[in-house]
């Protein structure tokens, strides 16, 4: 940490409280310089993590993060904050397990409390087919050393007593994939923690700075045009999630991505009663209770491609129907608000991360509905990829070339809900 930043601690909390002075700003404002060694497009979790690891672990300086709006205003502030590593492919399990481990140490590493809560994750099975996929996932997980097992309805009831585990419902609960290391992290805190730590390492964070074009010469990146002027740089990292195609278009790089909104909603706060994350694929819903007591719900992506983040009534209707089938006791609870975020969906539900045919143009996109849990590992691996000559083994399987070679990484079976 740079000397200009104050360290957060119990002592600083007391000192600040007694002195009544305002807290120092978490990150500084800078003039846009005319050149940087690396420009990260997108000031969300992935972009900030990439910039942070590039500075902190790879020793790079002169890094800029360009954000069109405000930091963490896209998918990073709109997801449902769930973390887990019970994926279907060995590549996916290894990657997300690493990310989960980084999350576990993140508060200490960034000196910022990200409210990491490893409370367990239940994926409910309502059909024989989903129970079969869960057995498969559990075996892959165990081989990779990830705690994950299939449990019966009685154990489900013990872990989440508010669930209706009777057989008098339309989709009775037949069992669940139980993943104790799963849980939630405060999503905004992860963004702010990375931003503050990146700033302390000298990264320039530029908000309200929109990329309008990317300059190339002889097949390699030479600069970035923004609404605040031209920046010359040999490295551009595209970390723009749902907007990934619009940035890749600037270097004429076609992408196998379609942008779909995913809607979420939150209820008024109630006393803590739900101690695990509960997911139902068949009922297209996932739910967790935040530390403030609100229930956060997410669902599957909207039925058609769109860049709009407006919520819809049919989403709330469907959500309420499904939630009440799972937890009938919630029928008096009121929804506070709903919103949508943009998901960059790929054909195989696995991300696209690493180099591209345009030299100096890196991508960290295609995370679809998995972006939040992947943030720390994706940022670390991309930083390593940018700084080194070799692609880190952790992300080798997720290269853009796989759509040419046909080596797809089918991760749809690990989706929390059917899409």
């Amino acid at each position: 940490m740079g000397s200009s930043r104050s360290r957060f601690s119990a002592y600083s909390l007391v000192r600040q409280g007694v002195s009544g002075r305002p807290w120092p700003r978490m990150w500084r404002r800078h003039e846009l310089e005319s050149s940087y060694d690396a420009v990260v497009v997108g000031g969300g979790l992935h972009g900030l993590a990439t910039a942070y690891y590039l500075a902190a672990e790879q020793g790079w300086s002169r890094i800029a993060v360009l954000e069109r709006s405000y930091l963490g205003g896209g998918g990073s502030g709109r997801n449902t904050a769930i973390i887990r590593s019970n994926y279907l492919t060995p590549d996916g399990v290894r990657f997300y397990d690493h990310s989960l481990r980084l999350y576990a140490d993140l508060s200490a590493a960034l000196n910022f409390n990200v409210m990491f809560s490893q409370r367990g994750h239940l994926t409910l099975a309502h059909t024989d087919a989903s129970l079969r996929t869960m057995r498969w996932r559990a075996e892959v997980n165990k081989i990779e050393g990830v705690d994950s097992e299939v449990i019966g309805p009685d154990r489900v009831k013990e872990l989440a007593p508010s669930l209706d585990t009777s057989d008098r419902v339309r989709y009775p609960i037949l069992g669940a994939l139980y993943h104790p290391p799963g849980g939630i992290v405060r999503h905004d805190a992860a963004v702010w923690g990375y931003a503050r730590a990146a700033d302390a390492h000298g990264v320039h964070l530029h908000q309200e700075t929109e990329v309008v074009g990317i300059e190339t010469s002889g097949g390699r990146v030479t600069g970035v045009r923004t609404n605040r002027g031209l920046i010359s740089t040999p490295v551009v990292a595209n970390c723009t999630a749902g907007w990934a195609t619009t940035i890749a278009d600037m270097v004429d790089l076609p992408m196998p991505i379609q942008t779909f909104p995913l809607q979420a909603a939150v209820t008024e706060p109630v006393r803590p009663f739900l101690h695990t994350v509960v997911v139902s694929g068949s009922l297209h819903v996932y739910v967790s209770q935040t530390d403030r007591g609100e229930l956060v719900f997410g669902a599957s992506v909207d039925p058609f491609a769109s860049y709009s983040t407006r919520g819809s009534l049919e989403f709330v209707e469907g959500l309420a129907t499904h939630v009440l089938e799972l937890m009938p006791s919630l029928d008096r609870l009121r929804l506070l608000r709903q919103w949508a975020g943009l998901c960059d969906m790929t054909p195989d539900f696995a991300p696209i991360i690493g180099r591209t045919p345009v030299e100096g143009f890196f991508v960290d996109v295609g995370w679809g509905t998995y972006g939040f849990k992947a943030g720390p590992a994706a940022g670390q691996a991309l930083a390593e990829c940018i700084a080194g000559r070799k692609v880190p083994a952790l992300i080798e399987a997720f290269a853009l070339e796989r759509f040419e070679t046909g080596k797809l990484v089918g991760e749809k079976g690990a989706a929390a809900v059917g899409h």
Partner: protein
Amino acid sequence: MLLLECPWCGGRNASEFAYAGEPMPRPDPESAGPAEWRGYLYLRANRCGWTRERWYHRAGCRRFFEIERNTQTHELRPVGGGAGGPDE
């Protein structure tokens, strides 16, 4: 809720339809190479703004049709400004 204008059945709720995505001309199996198949199978324009797309009237006439939609505002208009109807 989107109100989609099916050329055969008229305006209906989007929930009656299945989104079939960007129209992709199928490559000729006799001559197409791997690169062409890759484009057809995976690569998408994913435009932010006006796009041309296919929908399937699943709970109605069960026919495919094309329509133009703005992916940012959800405005709709017929392809090329004229209605592609049953005569096409």
